[in-house]
């Protein structure tokens, strides 16, 4: 089984110069916990998760008066993102997720995100009977 057989498409992405508040809206609307981050050319530059919002954007504001400058996605994202291609084996993606304790791996073709494989896609595959437990 390859990434293309399991991945969710199309992947929702966020721009690196979007505000974190916008990111929160997008994550809530899309019911996802993390998103690939792209630059102005649509090429992947990182990944951002709720965890990054929780620990990346909330830790410093208490130290001083809030500034007018919004916190941007690029300020809190993890970069570069751990990625795979559409023909990466699912077993290999699971190994990446487990060893690095990451929950999702963007699938890229020529730098552009074509889908995303998350641990929940394994849950879905078993629920739908594609993978037999």
């Amino acid at each position, binding site marked *: *089984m390859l990434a293309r057989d399991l991945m969710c498409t199309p992947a929702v992405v966020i721009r690196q110069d979007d505000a*974190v*508040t916008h990111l*929160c809206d997008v994550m*809530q609307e899309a*019911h996802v*916990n993390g998103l690939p981050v792209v630059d102005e050319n649509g090429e992947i530059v990182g990944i951002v998760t*709720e*965890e990054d*919002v*929780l*620990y990346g*954007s*909330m*830790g*410093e*504001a*208490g130290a001083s008066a*809030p500034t007018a400058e919004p*916190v941007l996605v690029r300020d809190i994202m993890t970069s570069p993102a751990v990625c795979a291609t559409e023909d990466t084996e*699912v*077993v290999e993606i*699971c*190994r990446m*997720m*487990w*060893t690095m*304790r990451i*929950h999702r791996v963007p699938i890229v073709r020529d730098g552009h995100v074509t889908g995303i494989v*998350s*641990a*929940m896609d*394994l*849950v*879905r*595959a*078993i*629920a*739908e*009977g*594609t*993978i*037999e*437990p």
Partner: protein
Amino acid sequence: MIARDLMQSPVPTIKEDAPLTEACDLFVEGRINGAPVVDVNDRLVGIVTQQDVLFGTLGRPIHEGGAPLLDFGPLDPIWTLRVRDVMTSPAVCATEDADVGELCRLMWSLRIHRIPIVREGRVAGMVSSMDLCHAVCEGTLAVPV
């Protein structure tokens, strides 16, 4: 395959009356995104996740009146809230002999990432989506070629 074959055990739990900050510490130290919540008798009463912390603390009245979304000052409710204030209760749970296919259907239909496994009301372990990744790595869960 049943829950017992897949679950992590033991798993860290958190008391319902613990400060929310303790849950945050547990998440960071344990590198986990959620934990079962127990009462004084160690009985499962709910589950708390990072998402509960994120959305449970940002929407409080303290932020009304134009305060910035990410103002994390001394009056922020995160310092006074307890785990029970933001947890999901009751928790969706299962027993050790639950079929993994059934567990996955439950997790997928509810879009939840983890299910505490209980024995006589107490937490015996937990099955999360990441445990499926682990099982695939170990070869105990086979993906079709």
